[in-house]
């Protein structure tokens, strides 16, 4: 495994994806993006990420289903940061056993700190 720290962004909204990529690029992470859970499953199989930033509401395969399927893939599993605008974000985070939760709209510093924190685990 190479030295770079990879972050997988799973998000269907193009603008938010672009924003996340810019911010995390600035922090020196290698950012992979997937527009839904199905694409994300292919990505994690090819280039396992160190941290996953996961939206909940997405077409095709949403965050919950992705998380469930991801947990069934061979270990190790990257920590998951749930990023959502949902009102019941806490419950969803519990359900998918997310390592961290960020609510939309988010503070850029919070995002960076949370990703870094999860990297250390």
């Amino acid at each position, binding site marked *: 495994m190479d030295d770079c720290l990879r972050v997988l962004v799973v998000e269907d*909204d193009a*603008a*938010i994806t*672009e*924003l996340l990529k*810019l911010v995390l690029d600035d922090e020196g992470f290698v950012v992979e993006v997937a527009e839904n859970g199905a694409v994300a499953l292919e990505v994690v199989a090819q280039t396992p990420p160190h941290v996953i930033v996961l939206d909940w509401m*997405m077409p095709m395969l949403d965050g919950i289903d992705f998380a469930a399927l991801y947990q069934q893939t061979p270990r190790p599993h990257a920590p998951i940061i749930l990023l959502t605008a949902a009102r019941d974000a806490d419950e969803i985070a519990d359900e998918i056993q997310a390592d961290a939760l960020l609510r939309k*709209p988010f503070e850029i510093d919070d995002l960076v700190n949370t990703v870094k924190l999860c990297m250390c685990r």
Partner: protein
Amino acid sequence: MKTTIQEHAAGYTPLPDFQRLFEAAPGAYLVLTPDFIIVAVTDAYLSTTMRRREELIGRYIFDAFPDNPDDAAATGVGNLRASLERVLHTRRADSMPLQRYDISRPEATGGGWEERYWSPINSPVLGDTGAVQYIIHRVEDVTAYVKLEQAERDHQCLAARLQTRIGQMEADASRDAHELQAARREAELQRERLHALFMHAPAPIAMVRGTELVYELANTAYYQLVGHKRDVIGQPLREVMPDLDPAIVADLTRVLQSGERFIGNEIPVILDWDNTGKPYEKVLNLVYEPYRDSTGAIEGIMAFAYDVTAQVIARRVIEESEARLRGALNHAETAHQRLTLLAQAGATLGSSLDYATTLRQVAQLTVPVLGDFCFFDLIVGDTELERVASAHIDPDTQAVFDQLWDSRARRPLPGGSIAKVITNGETQFVPYVSDEWLQQAAINLEHLQFMRSLRFHALMTVPLAVHGRTIGALTVCLVDPQRAYTAIDRELTEELARRAAIAIENAQLYTAEQAARAHAEAAVRARDEFLSVAAHELKTPITSVRGFALLLLKQVASGQTPTPERLQRALSTIDIQTNKLTQFIDQLLDVSRITANKLVLKRRCVNIGMLVQDVATGLQQTTDSHTIVVTMHGDTTGMVDPIRLEQVITNLINNAIKYSPYGGMIRAKIQRSQPAELRICIADQGVGIPPEHRAHVFDPFYQAHDPFAFGGLGLGLSISRTIVELHGGQILAEFPREGGTRMVVVLPVPPLLPEENQQEGA
């Protein structure tokens, strides 16, 4: 046939009539041959000796009548033989002294011997030669007389017994004279006794004679009964009672003719034969007994009348009071039955809010108390009836009813009583159902035939009404010809209907309340869901707007200068996302306007085809994976609000893009389908709409697909529909078999007037 005794004597051959006459003679005679063989015997002889003719004819008399073997001192056979021998010898009649001869009883009457005393006389019948041809043996049974004497002897002293013996010896000497005299005395005594008995008998008795029914005798009781104050003896009945019921005269005449006794019980007779002016009725038990003269011919009638008026009156009183009692009992039973019906119906109706079921049960309770069959009908809308429940006393007809109205089928209002009740809300009471009535009530021939087959003769339809509003009718019908509807039936039926109506209303209110609650709950759910979706849809653009703003701020704050490229991306994103926010807010405002009926169209003459083309061109910029193809045919101009119509087309094409996640062709077709109608079709090859959601796609806040998967507020189609409908058109969702969705907007576009065309050109 006339036969003289001489002729008979000459021929020796008893003629049949003569033999019968002989046999019927009142005396006890036996005819013997000279060798004592019995050749003839009278009925009286047979009767007194308890023998049958066949036991005697042809037999030797001493074999036929042997001595009593139990009586060693019996002398009967010896004495008779001696007398008969004397007759043969002397050829003259021989009177035997009083003779004891016991008669053997037939086995059927117990057997044994009966002590009897006889006074026999044997007379010869001489032939031409003077020889004895036959001996007539005649006997008188004097047992009773002897027994009486014996009894007296038992009680009298020896002297009396001696005297009797002397008297008996005297009797021996002059028996015939003595007996005759005694008999005459006895008969006279008997007659006097009978007359006294007759006259003073407690029952009215009269004797009438001959075809003229002439009064021969009438006793005191008879005079009292009939009320005659004058002597009626010797007068014919028709003169004494000229107005007598002819039936009574006929009965009397029949007895006279037939000789058969007449017995009539409880015959009412009007009596007023002395013109008192007060006729009175008596109820009599009558017996007409014919009596005959010595030749056996019917001479007259002895009429007995037993006055049973008092008994009959008493019995009638008892019967009447019994009938009244029974009536009261029936009434009480009926009242009880009705109270029970009301109570059971009330309990049934209160037991459940499912009034269709409870009414069926109440209908079952209603027959037979209020009729042989019944129906509950409810009004549906203004012109239809629903037969909610029916019951018939006969299970077979009930099965027909169940089959007819099992599905609670609705049917148009019939004529007849139900229609009237529903129209004026008053009970319709048809005490006699004629065929004409049926013809008027029937809605068609089949209905008429069915009603005829039910064979009801009376009916009553009462309204089911609550708060003065008629919601249906209860109809009860009678088949049993013995029954008729009474005012009480009517009251009861109306009361039953009142209770049923209240139960129905309660159930309907409950159902409506339930529906309202469900509706309210659904509205709350929809609102919650909408808020959730709205929050998400608003937060998503805000996330990127705010994120880019913060990113730029952070760089500026750290003394860096964002690259022009980054600056351009950030500002562009902010621009696009704030636009999206504005659209969302516009949609919310539109919904608010629609709800308040404040959405107003600003119509202009517009080339709708071009409008669609412009929208398609604009939206094609937003997607690479979809190809939007617009085709138009004919004149596509119309008076529409271009801004609102653009909103509709944008929404439809955006949906087509959104719900075709894998891209594909989107076809927009605009054509004049009718001279005054324009059709806009927008078809995609996307995911379509699941059938269960299709009915609701135009409802506000409704999203057929997971809102979070496809985004959007779920307001677009609802707003589009409102706009199209404000234009007087309609919007339809079609789902072709090959998949995808086809939205069709139909707009009325009357052909343009020249000046409008000019405006367009201007």
